[in-house]
Every structure is written in structure tokens, then in C-alpha cells.
């Protein structure tokens, strides 16, 4: 999916109002700077694509993040602010929603979420003063 036509300003506001707190809560006191930053992005669409990839396709050693609060909110935000974005087709998010039980937070998952914080931060830093 190409994120070029999303409403970036609204996505940034949603991130700063809610998704950021969800990500911090998931980190549960672990500082994101405790992990190496390994995933980079350069512009808004690029950052959102990387965020979507890391949110819904976690690495080996981290079962799933899709059912976490930040993922559900990210999914809802993309669905609302990105024309033609439909998560159900893209990564079967419905299955994740049914799994109410919270996944085990492994160190691999913490590292993944610290990468997400890096990508979301980079996304926010693309916004210049009006």
C-alpha cells in the first residue's frame, strides 16, 4: 500500500495524542534508547510504510503485536486517514482482534516497539513550522 495520499497532519495528531502513550505503556519503563536503532525512514510516506510493516509483521521471537492497543489504534488511524487502506485485506488484522489475551512481551517485542518509536519520531520530525 502506498501511503502518499494519507492525511499526515491528522495522523501526527493522533500519534501525539494517543498512540505515543500506548507505545510508552507497552515499553513499561524500558527506554527506547536502550536498544540500537536499526530501521530508518526518510519521508512521511516512507515512515508510515515502515511503521505499518513493523507493527503488523513482527520479527521472529515476537509472536504478535497486532492485538496491542497501539497496533489497533494505528490500524484504525490508517483506515480513517489513508484512502483505500484496508487492514483486513493487507494483514488479516481481524484475527488479531479476536485474540483478546495479551501476548507475552518478549525482549524482541520491546526492541521492535523501540524501532516503532524511532520511526514515529522521525515521522513527526518531517513536519515544518507552518
Amino acid at each position, binding site marked *: 500500500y502506498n501511503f502518499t495520499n494519507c492525511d499526515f497532519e491528522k495522523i501526527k495528531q493522533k*500519534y*501525539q495524542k494517543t498512540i*505515543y502513550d500506548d507505545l510508552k505503556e507497552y515499553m513499561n519503563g524500558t*527506554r*527506547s*534508547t536502550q536498544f*540500537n*536503532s*536499526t530501521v*530508518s525512514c526518510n519521508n512521511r510516506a516512507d515512515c508510515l510504510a515502515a511503521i505499518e510493516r513493523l507493527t503488523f509483521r513482527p520479527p521472529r521471537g515476537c509472536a504478535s503485536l497486532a492485538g496491542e492497543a497501539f497496533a489497533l489504534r494505528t490500524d484504525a488511524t490508517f483506515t480513517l486517514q489513508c484512502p483505500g487502506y484496508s487492514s483486513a485485506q493487507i494483514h488479516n488484522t481481524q484475527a488479531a482482534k479476536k485474540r483478546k489475551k495479551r501476548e507475552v512481551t518478549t525482549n524482541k517485542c520491546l526492541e521492535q516497539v523501540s524501532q516503532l*518509536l*524511532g520511526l*514515529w*519520531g*522521525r515521522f*513527526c*520530525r518531517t*513536519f*515544518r*513550522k507552518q
Partner: protein
Amino acid sequence: GGRIWGVLQVQIIWFNFETVQVTWNASEYPGTNLTFLYRFDSGDTYDQCTNYILQHDLTAGCTLDAEQDEILYFSIENGTHPLLTQSHWISYYLKPGSPRDLSFLWQQEAVTVTCPDLLYDGFLYEVQHRSTFDTSWQSQEEETCNVTIEGLDTEKCYCFRARVKTTESSYGPDAYPSDWSEVTCWHGGQPTDLCPDKLLHPKFTRFIL
């Protein structure tokens, strides 16, 4: 604030979107010239530092030109043996420049302090003020460099200073606030070099006989 990774205490500072300074405390390796290798793209090969910071004639840091918001990949080595290999967004260690060109607009008992905003979002502009009767600075901050402070007593002399702070959602928890701007003082809506010593409040006047 430095961070301890492995046996080396490393501090990273990205000065005002211009240069990155990485310094290390190599007390564990006395008399050793450690080597600093770096790159800004994970696909590139490492380059060695060309601008070392020396302490007692031994390498203690490296200064790099860096104007892009990127991930810094670096390795600090003893000979060819890597002691520490890390990669971090340099924005996580940004220290913005102090606010400049502050201007003050007085209107009765309020003043609006403005200055040029930095190019990007994600900052807070903090203005502090105090009168000669205040024991500490009082703070106010906004998302743009346009801060109005109300409830000021036109009879009193006030001093002001400002700085830029990063927001955690954009710059992470370890970024630095800027240094404070110069202090500027005002009395009766006019600039003054400094505020006169505290005028004894009539109630506390003491008479020496």
C-alpha cells in the same frame, strides 16, 4: 547525561542540527588510543573519525558534521577489537541552539515574548521571568516562540530568559534542552541593564538607631 553501554560511558550530543559530538570515558583502558568508526547508512562501510577530541593526548571523542536527521552507526575499538558497537537516531541526542532575537511587546500588565521558531515542529519554547521580589524563576511554555505572560506589576522590575525544549514523542527521552538565552531586564516597559537591588518593602523597613 552520558549513557553507559558496556564498559564505556558514551555521551552523544547533536548540536543544533549541525555537528554530532561523541565522547567516551575510557578509564578502563588507560594509555590507550581508542578508534572511532562511523557511518550514517547501514549499507555503507565504516569511516574512521577525522576529527578526534583529545584528552591528555589520547582520543576521548569525535566530532562529526551531521545535518541530516539520520541513524548514526558507530563502533569504538581498541586496536581492531570492537569495545562498543551501537546505532542511534542522532535526533535522540539533539541539543537545539538557544533562542535568539527575543522581542518583547508590553501591554499594560502583560508582555508577549517572541522569537524566530526553529524550522521543525516538536519543540516547546519556555520563557522564565522573575522580579526582584521573587526567589525563583517562574516558567511558561508554548509550542511556538510566542509566549504571553500576564499579571505583571508595572512598578516592578522583571528579568526574562528563554530556552528551547524537545518533546519526547518527537525526540525521545534523552534529548537536551537548549542553553538559556541571555537574561534581559525590563522596568516600566523599558529595557534596563539590571534590576536595582531589592527595594525594602515598606512593611519591613528597619530603622538603625
